[in-house]
């Protein structure tokens, strides 16, 4: 599959996306709402298929963003899905670990550091924070200063 065929394949999931951006030949950014993230990720991992790299959780001004980075190695392309969680009080998103075991740790990490609830995660216990760290303090949120 070359880059053009990869682009065409990504068009299939367009109905669930807010936008597709291509700032460079080998960089693609897809954005979607949190409720569509499970379907988009499942499509990318199982149907395209792409290699999962990592996720990034970002505390943006009015929402939380969960970025899922994938790589397509035959063309060296990095595909990033941006899922927006609008509810800042109780941020939650569907876990992708049930079909993608590689995401288990990073979802636990984002749960620790940003306080995001990954629904249906098989093992959502602490990974990064110490056992005696206080509940409800999330170090990677912007209100926590260094």
């Amino acid at each position, binding site marked *: 599959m070359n880059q053009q065929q990869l682009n065409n394949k990504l068009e299939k999931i367009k109905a669930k996306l807010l936008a597709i951006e291509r700032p*460079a030949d080998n960089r693609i950014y897809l954005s979607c709402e949190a409720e569509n993230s499970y379907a988009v990720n499942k499509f990318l991992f199982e149907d395209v298929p792409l290699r999962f*790299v990592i996720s990034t959780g970002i505390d943006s001004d009015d929402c939380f963003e969960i970025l899922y980075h994938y790589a397509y*190695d035959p063309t*060296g392309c990095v595909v*990033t899905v941006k899922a927006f969680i609008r509810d800042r009080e109780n941020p939650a998103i569907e876990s992708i670990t049930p079909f993608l075991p*590689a995401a288990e*740790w990073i979802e636990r990490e984002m749960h620790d550091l940003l306080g995001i609830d990954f629904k249906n995660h098989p093992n959502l216990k602490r990974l990064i924070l110490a056992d005696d760290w206080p509940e409800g303090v999330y170090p990677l949120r912007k209100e926590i200063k260094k």
Partner: protein
Amino acid sequence: MKKSVRKPVLAVGPFHPLQEEMEFFQLTVDGEIVTDIDVRISYNHRGIEKISESLQFDQVPFLVSRICGICSASHPLAYVQAVEEIAGVTIPDRARYVRTIIAEFERIHSHLLWAGLAGHFIGYDTVFMWAWKYREPVLDLLEEITGNRNNYGNVRVGGCREDIPDELIPKILVELDQIEKKTEMLTKAVLDDPVLHARLKGVGTLKRQDAISYAVTGPTARGSGVAIDVRADEPYAAYADLDWNVISQPEGDVFAKAVVRLLEVLEAVKIIRQALKKLPDGPVVIEVKEIPPGEGVGRAEAPRGETFHYVRSDGGNRPVRHKARAPSYVNVPSFKASCIGQHIADVTITLAAVDPCYSCTERLAVVDGNKVVFDYDALLKLSRRKTAELRKDAGVPELLKMEDL
């Protein structure tokens, strides 16, 4: 009625003599056979991503080179590539080659380090002593070029901090011949040894399908027949200009991973030789004044696998978000696939086979009784003096001072 019985759990860690870093494995065992494994990490979390948000773009490479003492070229390289992507900068040709050479020296010393440790873990200490002896000159060369044996801090946004002096090239070429000869000897000794065959073949097998679903990278993936390598898939630095091969083995066991690493050392020697031959003239750095708003991704093939950095800028002088993923973050969870069904005695080398790195480099102080003999500043002075002597002996100009940068 069947009573539920709690299975015995064998706890390894968080402190144990095998690994020099802290990690906690809980092996559920049925007799000698491991039936489940639970890994706990982060006993040494330093909050690098959070600290990075408080530093300027130029300062971050020196921070991320301290993510790991061994991969201290790969992390800054991935980071600066992400920032250069945001700024749309093309770096000078010579800088691309210098970055390649440093990155490959790092691969050589890291793979030799692993080979030595792997030998040590299975009680073959001769391999340990050989491999570490051959690794030493590589560290000396890195010190002569960058000023440091580890934590080279040699990449900057826009190029490199230190150039490779032309006077040093003949010496590097002589050392490369030595490294190649000795690694060939070591590779032969390891690959022909019937005891090592018996000890490592069929042990800790990570199947191709598991390698894909756990998304492993580096020699862990290439040892399972997944021939991915960022250097070839998305060539950065000067890799696209050079002739080299991606090494992969289909078996997935510990032996296959050892073969991949040893052959990669020889490929690295090949890469450095070509890069030195083709080394273009010109500056190694261009000035990058402002980083515009935007986001960028940087990837580099560290000795252990793909290092991935994501940086977002809002147009200020600091990143608003910086995510770093080290290769062990995806390689270590694959223990769930490779250790289950193994004997306890085989788990040690299976765990070591992915060359796990828990990213730890600590400040050093030499203490005699309660008195600090050498503190950080004194050690820094000693180290600078040694580098200056090494470079003087080689007839190479002195390193840049921090205030000249």
